[in-house]
C-alpha cells in the first residue's frame, strides 16, 4: 500500500469518526437512567479490530487527544490513555482470539468501556466520590453504549472493504 493509499484510508476512517461525533450529539438528549449512550470510546477500537496495525494505535491516540481537548475529564489525558489501551487490546483480540465480526465488535466495545471507565472510576474515587456510585454509573453507561458497536461496525467494515483492500 502506497503512502497515498494509506493517507486516503485513514482519512476515510477519520470521516467515519466525525460521523460518530455527529451521532453522539444526536444521542446526548436521549436519557435512560439519567445518562445517555456514549459511543466515542467505540470509535478507536473499530479500525484497530479491522486493521490490527500500529497505525490504529496512532489513530486511537488522535481520537483520544481530540476527546481530551473537547470534553475535559478529571485526568487531563484520560481519553488518550484509555483509547490507546483499548485499541491495542482490540487489535490483539481480533488478531489472536476471535475473527473480526459483530461478536468481536461487541467484545472490543466492552474493552473500550472497561479501559475508559476504569480510569474514570480511579479519577473520581480519588476525590469524594464513592466507588459504588462510580461503578453503578460505569455499568449503566456500558449497558447503554456497547450495543452501538453493532451499529458502528458495518460503517467501519465498509471502509475497510472498499478502501483498505483496494
Amino acid at each position, binding site marked *: 500500500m502506497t503512502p497515498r493509499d494509506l493517507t486516503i484510508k485513514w482519512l476515510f476512517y477519520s470521516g467515519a469518526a466525525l460521523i460518530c461525533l455527529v451521532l453522539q450529539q444526536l444521542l446526548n438528549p436521549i436519557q435512560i437512567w439519567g445518562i445517555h449512550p456514549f459511543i466515542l470510546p467505540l470509535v478507536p477500537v473499530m479500525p484497530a479490530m479491522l486493521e490490527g496495525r500500529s497505525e490504529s494505535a496512532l489513530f486511537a491516540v488522535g481520537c483520544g487527544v481530540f476527546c481530551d481537548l473537547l*470534553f475535559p475529564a478529571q485526568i487531563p489525558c484520560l481519553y488518550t490513555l484509555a483509547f490507546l489501551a483499548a485499541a491495542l487490546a482490540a487489535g490483539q483480540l481480533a488478531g489472536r482470539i476471535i475473527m473480526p465480526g459483530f461478536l468481536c465488535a461487541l467484545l472490543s466495545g466492552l474493552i473500550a468501556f472497561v479501559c475508559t471507565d476504569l480510569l474514570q472510576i480511579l479519577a473520581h474515587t480519588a476525590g*469524594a*466520590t464513592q466507588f459504588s456510585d462510580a461503578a453503578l*454509573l460505569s455499568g449503566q453507561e456500558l449497558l447503554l453504549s456497547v450495543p452501538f458497536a453493532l451499529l458502528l461496525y458495518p460503517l467501519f467494515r465498509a471502509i475497510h472493504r472498499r478502501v483498505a483492500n483496494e
Partner: protein
Amino acid sequence: MKKFFTKSGIIVLTVVTIAAVILCIVSAAGSGTGFIHNALGVIASPFRAAGSAVSGWVGDIAGRFASVESLQEENDALRQQVAELEKELRQAQEDSQENERLRTLLNLRQQREDFVFESARVVGQSTSNWSSTITLSKGTSSGIAIGDCAVNEEGFLVGVVTDAGLNWSTVTTILDPSSQLGAKVFRTGETTVVQGDLGLMNQGQLKLAYLAGESSVINGDLVMTSGLGGYYPSDLVIGSVEEIRTDDNGLTKYAVMTPKVDLDALVQVFVITDFTIID
C-alpha cells in the same frame, strides 16, 4: 342576357345604392329605431350572440394559457414571501423569548446593582456522563474569566466558568462532582458547603454537605451562596433541600438538594463578570 346585365346592371346598381343611401339618411334622421334597422337587428341578434360566445370562449382559453405562467411566477413569489415571513416569525418568537428573559433579568439587576452581567448563549451540553458542563458562545473577548458565576435570568445559579477561550467558555454546573461552593441556608443562616455528587448528578440533584449533627435544616429550605471569602457573589439561589441523610460515618448529615435552575432547558445564561464583595 349578358347585354341586359351589362346595360341594365349599372342602372340597377345605381338605383339600389340610391335607395340604400336614402334608407340610411331616413334611418339616421328619424327618431327612435326604424323598422328596417329593428328588423335587421332582430335577424342579426342570434349570430351576434353566437359570435360573442365563440370569441369569449376563445379569449378565455387564450387568457387561461397566458395566466398559467403569470400564476406560476406569482406562486413562486408568494412561496418566497411565505418563507421570508416564516423566518421573520421564528426570529420574532426567539426575540420575544429573549425579551422576556431580559425583562426578568432587569428585576434581578435592580435588586443587585453591583452585578455586571454578560449574556451568552448555551451552545453545547456535556457529552460525557461523568461530568456536567455547558459551553457558552462568549469568552474572554467579552470579559468572561475563569471563576465567574453563571446564572439564569431569574438569578438562579447555573455554575462557575472553569475554562475560557477567546469566544467560548465552559461552565461547570453545580451538579458536576468537582463543583464545590460556600452556601448558607436562607431560613437559619447556617453556613455550609454545596457540592456535586456523581451518584446524584444523573438524577439532577446535588449535596448540601457537612451539616452539623444538631443542624435544623428541614425539607424545603432554600439554599443560597454564602459569598464567604469573596470568591463568589453572595445570595445567589442554588436550590432547595429535598431530603436529609446521615453520612456513612454516622456523625454528620448531608442534605440532598434539587437545584432551582432547569439545566436541560437552558438557552441563555448571564455570566456575572463583576460584583461588589460584601463582608
